[in-house]
């Protein structure tokens, strides 16, 4: 088939789906529009495989354009990310179909538009095309998130829109500056622009891009929209937002930073990026621990993972700045592998959390519990997702975090001794983040699925139909597969990132082991086999003593009858760490004595609130200042016709004089 067939199919199918969603009346036929997105995802996946096998594909269109020719381009790096993203799209589309939330015209339309904009953003080569796709992405996700629940206030949506647009403004400015100063309008044609525009300007451009794309990724301090939006929108939207949108952001960021601009000699820039990313990851893991809504925990988890990815990317920039190409390539490969893995397990977790919310009718962790007995299949699949996100062997999160740690352990190429300390500090920060985040995920899983149910909804969850689990299974399988046997992917990834940092083909995989410059490697297949072997040995030892029967009794209670209220709550589980890091959280605690219910019993009310310092100290003053300024300007609009006509006349006269 012609080279243009697959990409055109990929981009036109969602369009068809959107049209179908609007035109067709019956609910059943909206299924077809979701099927269109799924089909487009399949087309995207096939195209990526084709590009991986045959090399970069580039298509230029003859459509009339203002500036240069519109073009789309898929190189091997983009193909790898697109492949995984497309598979996730297909699963999310299935999830949207099979979930028994009504498939409305609005949701189908927005889903297709969102898919289209993401696909376009990933393959866009023309700066204008990229910006249009990015805008479309923001708008469709905003509209999709808005009005998903009846009881919402729309502040979350507006915050999201405002912050994303601020970020988009930074990105547009940076890209426009690059386009104008280089005269090129296609991203693939811009190479090594730092020589052209000088180190100061390129540092500024890269920072603007980081902050701009970071607003979508949840970089500090642009993260405040994330938890509210995740808890208020439907899980379909959040699954796509967290995975696909982040993929686009990181992909474009990597391409522009390393390839278009270049980071030679940019030491301070790399350290700034690393510092900001480390703070983001730390803050996110601390906040994930104390949330009551599972979706909010996952929002902060996305923020933390993005922080770690950007930290490793900053380390790659640092290595590149010192001219060490191979460590830079390894670090970049580790970061992008983590991005791919994050797509898979985060989509799994978000869809799982949405399923729990629908089955139990509750979203508050304080009211869930004991769901593993009512929903065993979901609990098993969610466990796989939790183990992956907590980076435990043998799942995919472990392999990519191992690679990230390994990349940071290599401090020799850095000549400046003071800068060399940045790497062990980065390792310490990363270790602390992953440990606190693991506690947060443990809390999420353990208090949702284990123990006693804490409310009626959790006690009798609506049983799930088989079809509701179907979309989650491929993702769970991918988690295991990518954890155990990801070698071809890693080799392709290493080959794809090497040209970005000027390394000559990095050989990462030897046999079945991931090796880095003979400094110790990991054999994930061997490790997983060993784990399985260990379990088998355990099983055999135990079976050798014969079968025993299992007797079920009440939980041991030391004499006091236990009920749903005498078990650890989510607040209680996080309490020790909350106290250890009190200076970070600054919880506001209020203890009030309530009227006594009887002669012998006291009633006490305990309220703990964890403030949001960024909202209180950064955004509220900013918005208050902006509103004050707007009030002053408002005085110009006095309402009288004379004033407006005066403005027009003055402007006209000034312009005529100036353009004389």
């Amino acid at each position, binding site marked *: 088939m012609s080279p243009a067939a697959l990409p055109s199919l990929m981009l036109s199918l969602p369009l068809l789906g959107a049209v179908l969603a609007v035109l067709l009346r019956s609910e059943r036929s909206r299924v077809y529009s979701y099927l269109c997105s799924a089909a487009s995802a399949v087309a995207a996946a096939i195209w990526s495989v084709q590009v991986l096998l045959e090399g970069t594909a580039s298509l230029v269109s003859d459509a009339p354009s203002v500036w240069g020719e519109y073009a789309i381009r898929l190189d091997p790096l983009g193909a790898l990310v697109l492949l995984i993203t497309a598979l996730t799209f297909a699963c999310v589309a299935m999830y949207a179909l099979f979930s028994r939330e009504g498939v409305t015209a609005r949701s189908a339309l927005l889903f297709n538009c969102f898919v289209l904009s993401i696909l376009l953003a990933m393959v866009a080569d023309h700066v204008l095309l990229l910006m249009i796709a990015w805008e479309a992405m923001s708008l469709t996700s905003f509209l999709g998130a808005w009005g998903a629940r009846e009881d919402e206030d729309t502040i979350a949506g507006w915050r999201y829109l405002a912050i994303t647009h601020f970020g988009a403004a930074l990105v547009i400015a940076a890209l426009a500056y690059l386009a104008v100063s280089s005269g090129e309008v296609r991203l693939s044609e811009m190479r090594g622009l730092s020589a052209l525009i000088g180190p100061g300007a390129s540092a500024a451009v890269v920072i603007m891009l980081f902050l701009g794309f970071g607003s979508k990724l949840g970089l500090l301090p642009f993260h405040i929209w994330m938890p509210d939006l995740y808890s208020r929108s439907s899980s379909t939207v959040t699954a796509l937002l967290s995975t696909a949108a982040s993929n686009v952001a990181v992909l474009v960021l990597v391409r522009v930073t390393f390839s278009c601009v270049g980071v030679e000699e940019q030491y301070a820039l790399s350290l700034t990026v690393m510092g900001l990313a480390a703070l983001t990851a730390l803050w996110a893991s601390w906040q994930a621990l104390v949330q009551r809504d599972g979706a909010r925990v996952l929002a902060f988890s996305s923020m933390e993972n993005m922080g770690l990815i950007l930290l490793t990317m900053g380390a790659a920039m640092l290595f590149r700045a010192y001219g060490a190409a191979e460590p830079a390539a390894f670090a970049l490969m580790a970061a992008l592998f983590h991005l791919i893995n994050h797509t898979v397990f985060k989509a799994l977790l978000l869809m799982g959390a949405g399923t729990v919310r629908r089955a139990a009718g509750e979203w508050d962790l304080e009211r869930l519990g004991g769901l593993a007995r009512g929903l065993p299949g979901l609990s098993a699949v969610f466990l796989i997702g939790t183990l992956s996100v907590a980076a435990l062997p043998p799942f995919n999160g472990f392999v990519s975090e191992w690679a990230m740690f390994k990349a940071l352990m290599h401090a020799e190429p850095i000549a400046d001794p003071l800068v060399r300390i940045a790497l062990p500090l980065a390792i310490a920060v990363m270790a602390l983040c992953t440990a606190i985040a693991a506690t947060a995920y443990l809390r999420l899983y353990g208090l949702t699925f284990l123990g006693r149910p804490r409310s009626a909804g959790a006690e009798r969850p609506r049983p799930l139909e088989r079809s509701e689990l179907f979309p989650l299974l491929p993702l769970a399988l991918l988690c295991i597969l990518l954890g155990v046997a990801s070698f071809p992917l890693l080799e392709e990834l290493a080959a794809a990132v090497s040209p970005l940092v000027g390394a000559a083909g990095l050989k990462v995989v030897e046999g079945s082991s991931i090796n880095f410059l003979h400094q110790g490697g990991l054999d994930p297949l061997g490790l997983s086999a060993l784990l399985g*072997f260990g379990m088998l040995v355990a099983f055999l030892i135990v079976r050798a003593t014969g079968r025993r029967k299992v007797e079920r009794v009440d939980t041991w209670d*030391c004499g006091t009858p236990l009920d749903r209220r005498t078990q650890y709550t989510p607040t209680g589980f996080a309490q020790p760490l909350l106290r250890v890091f009190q200076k970070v959280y600054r919880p506001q605690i209020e203890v009030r004595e309530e009227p006594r219910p009887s002669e012998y019993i006291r009633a006490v009310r305990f309220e703990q609130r964890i403030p949001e310092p960024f909202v209180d100290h950064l955004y509220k003053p900013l918005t208050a200042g902006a509103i004050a300024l707007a009030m002053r300007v408002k005085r110009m609009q006095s309402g009288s016709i004379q004033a407006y006509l005066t403005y027009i006349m003055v402007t006209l006269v000034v312009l005529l004089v100036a353009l004389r």
Partner: protein
Amino acid sequence: MQLTDVLIVIAEVSFVLMVSPLLTGIIGKAKAWMQCRQGPSVLQPYRDLWKLMRKATVASREASWLFFVIPYVCLGAMVCLAVMVPVFNAGPSGGVGDMVATIYVLGLFRFMMVLGGLEGGSPFGGMGSSREMMISAIVEPTLLLSIFSVAAISGTTDLSSISRFFAALGPKGLSPTLFLASAAIFISLLAENSRVPFDNPATHLELTMVHEGMLLEYSGRELAMMEMASYVRLTMFMVILSNVFFPWGIALGTGAGELLVGVASISLKLLLLSVSVAVVESVMAKMRLFRLPNLLTVSFTLSLLAVMSYYIL
């Protein structure tokens, strides 16, 4: 990998499995002697395990399917660890002996054990689980920084290669970095294995339990597996401490004489470490829970100083 390598690995795993309960018994006996009493026999843990294996399993009504899977995963992870870490022979590990991977396998064990504590819906399990996570959250950076300092000196993170590197250097390899990092790891050993001053392994009061609290609901075979896994974890920590930082005597080849020397040297080191743990446990009292972060920060600062001293000295 040749047949001899495979045989040696099997021998190492069997050695670890057989010796682990003995080490806990030795610690108990040494503590008893320091308290001027006879104490239980050093073979008591074996008898306890045997007794538990023959008992029926009594599970809570609130427990789910995960409750029965967890002991297998935990014990399996520890057996896997025994293969990964060189015990008396520093042979080629075939890519599974990475130090960072070791920390993560330990993390898997801990994650599963903490989940087990939340089954059953009792407050004691939740208490143990949340406290365990508090301690381990601060121990992780220490462990990884210590690994970093060792990897920086030896140029690799593969356990066998590190052992070989330090064994070849001999006593000349002793440096402040090594001492500081091993001190940090010794404190982490006490923390992760629930020893005084972090937790009292012999306590019967639920309010003071960290490790025992998570195992309250287990019984019979499952409890035997979890206890065995804990014994193996203690042994493996001690093996890592000996073979990474002070690996003199470890066998570098596969000759019978070398292997015997290797077995003798690791046995001696394990004995010394067990007695030191017993001494520390007898000399110190269990600290209040919220004073533990202070001690853990000391351990973190030691590992930070280990990294700094590598760069300074």
